[in-house]
């Protein structure tokens, strides 16, 4: 019997899809799978963010076409928000990526944010790891970004591309600060529309105010694949880390992830079999019989971790 890891290594796309379900839902089998598959080497993780309608999905599709010409296997994680009320989500990014249907070299997975802040789904880090381990490079993560909490995407991506379109003037004013800070590359898409040059100059002057060096600002027309060579070149340069700060970013990310993963595992182990104790302690705290600090100290007694 072959394992899921073997099937994924052999290029079985159904197996990869099932593996993604396991890691997205943080199931034990998903963790085992990530351990079995090992590290994916240095796949370039590219985050693409920006307001709805800027053309992110169209741009991802056009980029994927470019990378396919270099025979690279492209993984795409397209994240859209979940409704905070029903938990449901409408995931429509594939509509813009249909030209890659039938090409096993492009793997697209839609993810719902499931309440995670900053537009990033909880299992996204593991999902990106899985695609990298399966041989995809680059791994692109598309998320909706409107100016709050986008820092999250930096934690999952080596390189963050912020995509804007002309005509979003007021919106851009409001979100510029947050989005500009995180951009390694700024793209003004829909450059065929009026106002593109104005947006470029607005971004140029805003970028001067950043602490970090100003990012490249590139114009594209995603629907016609215009400006894509320059964008690919900028991404490749960043991926090659010619003083681009990529290594540093990766180290920061690795440190944060290891901490979060170990903390999470520890916590799971700690709470196992303690739900009654938690319930009793919570009641005592709620009733004002114990302070939270007292109750927590008692719960932790005898735990040597």
């Amino acid at each position, binding site marked *: 019997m072959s394992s899921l890891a073997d099937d994924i290594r052999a290029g079985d*796309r*159904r197996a990869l*899809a*099932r593996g*993604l*379900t396991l890691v997205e*839902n*943080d*199931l034990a089998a998903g963790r085992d799978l990530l351990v079995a598959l090992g590290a994916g080497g240095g796949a370039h993780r590219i985050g693409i963010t920006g307001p709805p309608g800027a053309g992110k999905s169209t741009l991802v599709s056009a980029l994927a076409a470019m990378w396919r010409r270099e025979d690279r296997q492209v993984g795409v994680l397209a994240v859209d928000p*979940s*409704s905070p009320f*029903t*938990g*449901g*989500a*409408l*995931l*429509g990014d*594939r*509509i813009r990526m*249909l030209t890659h*249907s*039938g090409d096993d070299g492009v*793997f*697209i*997975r*839609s993810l*719902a944010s*499931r309440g995670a802040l900053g537009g990033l789904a909880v299992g996204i880090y593991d999902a990106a790891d899985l695609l990298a381990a399966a041989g995809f490079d680059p791994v692109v993560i598309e998320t909706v970004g409107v100016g709050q909490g986008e820092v999250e995407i930096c934690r999952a991506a080596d390189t963050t591309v912020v995509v804007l379109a002309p005509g979003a003037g007021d919106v851009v004013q409001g979100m510029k600060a947050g989005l500009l800070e995180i951009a390694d590359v700024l793209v003004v898409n829909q450059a065929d529309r009026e106002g593109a040059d104005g947006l470029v100059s607005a971004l140029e002057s805003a970028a001067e105010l950043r602490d970090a060096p100003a990012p490249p600002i590139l114009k594209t027309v995603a629907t016609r694949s215009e400006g894509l060579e320059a964008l690919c070149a900028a991404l490749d340069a960043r991926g090659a880390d010619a003083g681009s700060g990529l290594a540093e970013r990766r180290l920061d990310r690795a440190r944060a992830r290891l901490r979060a993963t170990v903390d999470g595992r520890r916590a799971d182990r700690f709470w196992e079999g303690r739900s009654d104790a938690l319930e009793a302690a919570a009641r005592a705290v709620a009733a004002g019989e114990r302070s939270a600090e007292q109750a927590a100290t008692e719960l932790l007694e005898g735990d040597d971790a």
Partner: protein
Amino acid sequence: MNAADERPIRILVAKAGLDGHDRGAKVVAAGLRDAGFEVIYTGLRQTPEMIVDAAVQEDVDAVGLSLHSGAHMTLFPRVLELLRERGAEQILLTGGGIIPEADMDALSAMGVGRLFGPGTPLADLEAYIRAEVAERRATAS
């Protein structure tokens, strides 16, 4: 697998065939989202190959096909065949359109799930998918 059973139902909603509007499919997609499903919507003029390719990559629990072109007797069996070829026969294939009862019976005998006529309340569709997916997830784990 308890955790697995609690995860949201994922469904691919697509409009197959050549006729040009997808209002019905969009309404169904939005309705299922409001019912708490994660709906992957792929839009118009989807070929069986495109539908199955997306369903496999997305690892959906169900595929909901909307069609009005009268090609149901070729499209549904073809999608079913491709799902089986890809080892994805666990995925529920359901859908809707104007389909004569005799054809519905024939498709059901092939392994297609229940098909819904125009004007079916969304709640019926939702209840059917929930029950069917719960059963399929239980047998898979």
